[in-house]
């Protein structure tokens, strides 16, 4: 099994990479970790005419706090780098929950944040986390740069807002505020498989331990990551009782439309999405530091 022939160009600089993409457009794909693209090419589901290898562009890698209380992650940052970055994980505990679920150690040694998000697999963890965290996707082309909210970035199955001459160069999101708790949970058939359903929950409470703000996003249950924050609106201003959280789970079960797959029927996916919603909200609440 091998990919169809293509032209390989190792980009010598960031500007070179963007110039090549402007030149070749949809014919070309960027090669980052290659952990989704190369298998698709091995199966010949993807047959790009040109591969622009960006692995040499170190300036695209790295994560950390930037000005204005926001956290930035470069597109070429590999999962395993984040897994070992205790400072980053302490600031973004959602990633600490989610990273071990992403495939296997060998894949995490190569796979990149930007590659994952550009690939936009709806069963993948990171798109849902980006939506939950209200990340801004930083996009550049030879002509300029722009930012798109994660909720608008994911447009459909494996489809994003990135245009043919553009590259996702990184993401930025606000650093969590005080009294914020987060949790990511998923169910997969085997360790490292894509999730049958996964839930990312971010809750901020007030000084009386009432829910002040709630972000909720799901993976694996639609053609894009699902922003279910509206389903949690009933929690705002309320103490987080078991009944209140169960009401949110019921709302989530009603709003999603999973397609089912070889491992799970749509009803089963809906059921586990509800169970995970309950558990993730409960865990996020307890991590705000207020729960009894």
């Amino acid at each position, binding site marked *: *099994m091998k990919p169809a022939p293509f032209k390989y160009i190792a980009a010598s600089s960031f500007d070179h990479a963007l110039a090549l993409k402007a030149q070749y457009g949809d014919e070309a794909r960027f090669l980052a970790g290659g952990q989704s693209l*190369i298998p698709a090419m091995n199966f010949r589901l993807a047959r790009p005419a040109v591969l622009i290898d960006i692995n040499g562009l170190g300036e695209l890698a790295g994560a950390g706090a930037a000005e204005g209380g926001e956290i930035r992650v470069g597109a070429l940052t590999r999962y395993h780098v984040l897994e070992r970055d205790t400072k980053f994980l302490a600031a973004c505990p959602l990633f600490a929950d989610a990273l071990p679920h992403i495939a296997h150690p060998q894949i995490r040694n190569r796979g990149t944040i930007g590659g994952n998000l550009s690939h936009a697999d709806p069963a993948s963890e990171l798109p849902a986390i980006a939506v939950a965290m209200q990340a801004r996707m930083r996009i550049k082309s030879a002509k300029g740069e722009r930012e798109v909210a994660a909720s608008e970035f994911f447009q459909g199955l494996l489809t994003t807002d990135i245009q043919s001459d553009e590259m996702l160069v990184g993401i930025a999101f606000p650093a969590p505020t005080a009294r914020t708790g987060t949790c990511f949970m998923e169910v997969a058939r085997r360790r490292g498989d894509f999730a049958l359903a996964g839930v990312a929950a971010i809750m901020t409470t007030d000084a009386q331990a009432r829910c002040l703000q709630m972000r909720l996003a799901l993976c694996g249950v639609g053609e894009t990551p699902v922003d279910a924050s509206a389903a949690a609106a009933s929690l705002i201003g309320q103490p987080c009782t078991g009944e209140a959280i169960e009401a949110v789970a019921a709302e989530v079960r009603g709003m999603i439309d999973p397609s089912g797959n070889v491992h799970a029927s749509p009803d089963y996916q809906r059921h586990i999405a509800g169970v995970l919603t309950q558990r993730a909200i409960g865990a996020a609440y307890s991590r705000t530091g207020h729960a009894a």
Partner: protein
Amino acid sequence: MRPERHDIELSVNGTTYRSAVESRTLLSDFLRHDLELAGTHVGCEHGVCGACTILFDGAPVRSCLMLAVQANGHELSTVEGLADSNGELHPVQQAMHDHHGLQCGYCTPGILMTMTAFLKQNPEPSEHEVREALSGNLCRCTGYQNIVDAMLAAAQTMRAAAP
């Protein structure tokens, strides 16, 4: 159309190789067919089974999910480099032998490469950590139990041998 070729130079198990490779040649195929290092096995060729795991600059990766041209200027290790020059097995290999950690042996090179890197990074793993580290390598013969036993024993041997 003449296939486009790239000159590459890389190190495998300490030996430098120079070659001209087609863009689409997978690293796994390059190791096996061009360098004739057929110890790296090829199973699923889409990143699921782990049989083709090698060390790329010291880190375990799937060689079927990389292009040979991407290895230009990098240092690779394969199963052929594990035993020393006198043929004495690496402690991880010896433990697999002692604990019957393989039957058909097809998955074994990938497991050896994954776990030598893991034990270097985590010399005193729990059983759970060993199972987690093994999660990216499929074995259909052993049921994993003997592999887990072998890795815990190898960790102990390597700790005892460490200065």
